[in-house]
């Protein structure tokens, strides 16, 4: 999953990740990637909540995915091998490692003896694919496994494990410590079972004593003594067992992710939506370009065809989306967020073409019901939330806002928006804002028109619904149309803002 770090899919998510998952509707994506398997779902969530921020890793993942897609079956076999090994490990260690060195030794030897043939299977599996592996990730895994888990090495391991059965007894030395207790215990190579212990130590003298067979306390004392002798070796074995388990754990999580990715592409493809490998721009080129971009989650959820949109920021840091209710604005916003997250996981995106910079964070600020309460409380709670979000982002981040400041009136909300979001984008953060607040949108147009992209959703009933066009904001969200549709007659008193626009570039859709 990365040239340097191990991919770990723990059960927990980073703070805020759950909210973001809900905002963007990612649970559908996770569910499909999981395809009923908890481990796969967890890996998918872990990846999506920790998007990668460096080009090298992204390329690494894309190439690994391509490789696994080309070598059908490898990912599944690797995943199954890892899963089996882990399950066996957990079965053998169900009572833990034990509290005495002897029980630790016993369990560790059992675990490692189970792991060795699994490692052989893994090596042979990868060897079978041999030259067909093209990506650095899989080539690397293959080479590492062939080199480090060769037969000579595994024989060495097996021989240690055999000796650590301690069938022939234990041998160790010690010095004298406080109160003449034994100290500085050091284990020697365990004597083998068949051979009589060569008392070629005929040089020095030796003394032998026995513990009587029925002496239970004595036998316990003897076991304790041996335990002290082997303690260090036992902990070394336990550590080794844990490390091998860790290796399989990482292998499982990583293959789980790629299996999810491949399944996702298959499902998306089967629904007729185009996917592509995203391109990442470098350096100062921060433009976002997309052709036929769809919200992946919606594609998975919706029975009817999802409308695609095009996007071309041309480096403009602020994107303001206005327009009719249910005109597809939120969906559009999500499509950008989901695509960017998926892209920054190394996944293909649902678009015909997609090119974007690498953002260090992708953050969302969506309207929340919890901002409910007394009006003053709602705005305050929203601002607190926004403040928390702002603390996490930088000028290299992507921020997606859906109806910010809707918890207050237009004038106040617009003012706050102009003071917060516009300067933020001026600093370099890529900001997308979906809003009904005309004053906010218009203010942005007046003062930062050149560096802002304005998109507008169509009116209901118009052609090509859910498609956004590049157009300045209008003072109305077509509430009058909605009224007419519901009441069957125009409103007696004109609604505020129903006057024809006088702004530049209006496309003249005002009026009945």
């Amino acid at each position: 999953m990365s040239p340097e770090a191990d991919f770990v899919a723990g059960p927990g998510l980073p703070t805020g990740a759950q909210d973001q998952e809900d905002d963007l509707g990612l649970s559908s994506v996770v569910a499909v990637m999981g395809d009923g398997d908890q481990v796969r779902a967890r890996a998918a969530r872990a990846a999506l909540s920790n998007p990668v921020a460096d080009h090298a890793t992204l390329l690494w993942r894309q190439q690994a995915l391509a490789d696994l897609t080309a070598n059908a079956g490898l990912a599944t076999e690797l995943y199954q091998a890892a899963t089996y090994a882990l399950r066996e490990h957990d079965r053998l260690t169900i009572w833990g490692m034990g509290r005495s060195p002897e029980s630790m030794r016993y369990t560790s030897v059992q675990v490692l003896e189970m792991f060795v043939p699994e490692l052989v299977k893994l090596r042979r599996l990868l060897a079978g694919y041999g030259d067909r592996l093209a990506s650095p990730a899989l080539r690397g895994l293959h080479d590492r496994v062939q080199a480090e888990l060769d037969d000579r090495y595994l024989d060495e391991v097996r021989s240690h494990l055999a000796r650590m059965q301690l069938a022939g007894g234990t041998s160790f030395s010690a010095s004298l410590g406080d109160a003449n207790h034994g100290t500085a215990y050091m284990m020697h190579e365990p004597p083998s079972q068949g051979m009589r212990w060569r008392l070629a130590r005929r040089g020095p003298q030796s003394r032998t004593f026995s513990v009587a067979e029925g002496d239970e306390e004595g036998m316990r004392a003897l076991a304790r003594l041996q335990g002290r002798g082997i303690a260090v070796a036992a902990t070394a074995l336990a550590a080794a067992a844990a490390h091998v388990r860790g290796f399989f754990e990482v292998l499982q999580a990583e293959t789980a992710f790629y299996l999810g990715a491949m399944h996702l592409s298959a499902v998306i493809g089967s629904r007729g939506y185009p996917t592509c490998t995203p391109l990442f721009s470098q350096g100062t080129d921060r433009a976002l370009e997309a052709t036929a971009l769809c919200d992946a989650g919606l594609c998975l959820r919706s029975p009817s065809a999802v409308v695609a949109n095009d996007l071309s920021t041309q480096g403009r840091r602020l994107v303001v989306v206005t327009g009719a209710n249910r005109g597809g604005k939120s969906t559009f916003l999500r499509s950008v967020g989901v695509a960017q997250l998926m892209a920054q996981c190394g996944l293909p995106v649902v678009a015909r073409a997609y090119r974007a910079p690498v953002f260090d964070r992708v953050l969302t600020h969506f309207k929340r019901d919890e901002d409910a309460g007394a009006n003053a409380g709602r705005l305050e709670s929203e601002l607190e939330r926004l403040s928390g979000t702002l603390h996490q982002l930088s000028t290299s981040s992507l921020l997606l806002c859906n109806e910010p400041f809707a918890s207050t009136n237009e004038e106040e909300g617009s003012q706050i928006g102009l003071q917060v979001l516009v300067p933020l984008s001026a600093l370099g953060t890529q900001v997308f804002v979906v809003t009904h607040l005309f004053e906010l949108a218009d203010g942005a147009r007046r003062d930062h028109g050149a560096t802002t992209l304005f998109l507008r959703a169509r009116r209901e009933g118009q052609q090509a619904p859910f498609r956004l066009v590049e157009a300045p904001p209008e003072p109305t969200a077509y509430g009058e149309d909605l009224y007419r549709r519901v009441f069957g007659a125009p409103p007696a008193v004109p609604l505020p803002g129903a006057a024809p626009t006088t702004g530049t570039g209006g496309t003249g859709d005002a009026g009945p």
Partner: protein
Amino acid sequence: MSTVPSLLHPLGDDALSGAPEASLALTDLGLHQALAVMGDLGPELEALFRTPAGGADAVAYRYEVWDDLGAGVVESLLRRFTQQMGSLRELLATAARARNAWQARRLVVEACSAYTAHVRSLSTGLTSACASSRALRAFGTELEAYVGSAAFAELEEGSRAVLDELGEVRYTVLVRNNRVTVTTYQGEDDYALEVARTFARFEAPGGQQYRFASSGPVELDDVEARLLDVVAELHPGPFGRLDRFAAHNGAFFHPAVVSLEKGARFYLTYLDLVAPLRARGLGVCRPQLSVGPGPTRAEGLYDLALALRAGTAANPPEVVPNDVDLAADERTVIVTGPNSGGKTTLARALGQAHYLATLGLPVPARRAELVLPDRVATSFTQKEVLDLGRSHLEHELVHLHEVLAHAGPRTVVVLNETFSSTTLRDALLLGRAVLGALAERGSLCIFVTFVEELVTSVPGAVSLAAVVGTDDRLRRTYRFTRQPPQGAVYAAALAERYGLTDLGARDQVGR
């Protein structure tokens, strides 16, 4: 003349005179409670708190040590030393209990080595502390000589050598089923290293660390004991040396060290006792003492036992310090006041100050000037009749007869409601007689009583009466001042409260 220095007496510990003080005064003055707070002292240490130092010079000798203790260096030096000695004794106790002879001998040698280290550091510490008291200077000199002596060097180097040699011993054990075979170590390799090396290629950073607790009981189990015996057989050199050294140096404590330890515990125990009081603003001080006639003065005097109780109780009684100022010829003091007003407390406080002075301990006051007593005697009312053959009054008189037989100008007598079990007339008669006799002998007498007439009937007596509250004449202030007994005032206030004065009574009756 003993050559072993002492922290407790200029002529050595042996010079501490005779039997511990009879417990009556100690108990009457409430000091047994202080002893209880000190915890389990052991008979030797407890006796020190009951035995007067023995004369003005011995008392001064001890106060010099208190002056040295005032500078933190000496105190921490002695504390560390007593703690170390305590651990040492525990080690030796473990050695005595050990069932395996080789373990016992080893423990003795370990104790010996630790002992030489502690004594050496104590000696160095004492020398650099520049103590001024005769006691600590004597110890400084003695310890310096001891540490430089051949006997000490033998102990120090000998024990170290034995332990070092034992440290060189290494043995190999082979365990097969129930048989244990032991030889000397033949240079075998560390197998765990090989194991770790083989499995190193799986290593990941931040893995779980496995550790086994290495501590267990000191006592060797059966297998360990047999193993040790066998190891001893295989290494006759080092173990022979161990055997010889342990046999030769079974008892290695130098008498000066033992004496210093004993004395240090005395001082440190008292310091620990009064430390929490200091934190509450109640200090102790070194009193100015005279052996000839002199004034009896104290500022901020309080009852030590009461103060100690106050620190621990849920509803603590108040501790109110008082000032006392008696000229050299004012040796009879009558203390009067309402019930539970602090009369007995004041008398106890003054008695305690004198008693503690005879022990050479700092007294519970901010400042004090006292005549060093040769004896502190008490007579407090006993609730129970101690001797069935006598009445309470008879008992008091017998006791006072004995006191008077030995009373002199440096005797301090504290009487608390003595003669209260008889008629007023008798009490007045007896009281006058006893006070007169004590005055004749020049003893300091503090008499707590309700019999206010005693004040006027004894020439030169000082009356200390309780101060009543100005706002509420029934409020106890626990403060006393030189003034005539206030009984009338108090009684009047009480009467008024209950409407029993003239006017009030008329009101009641009229109904």
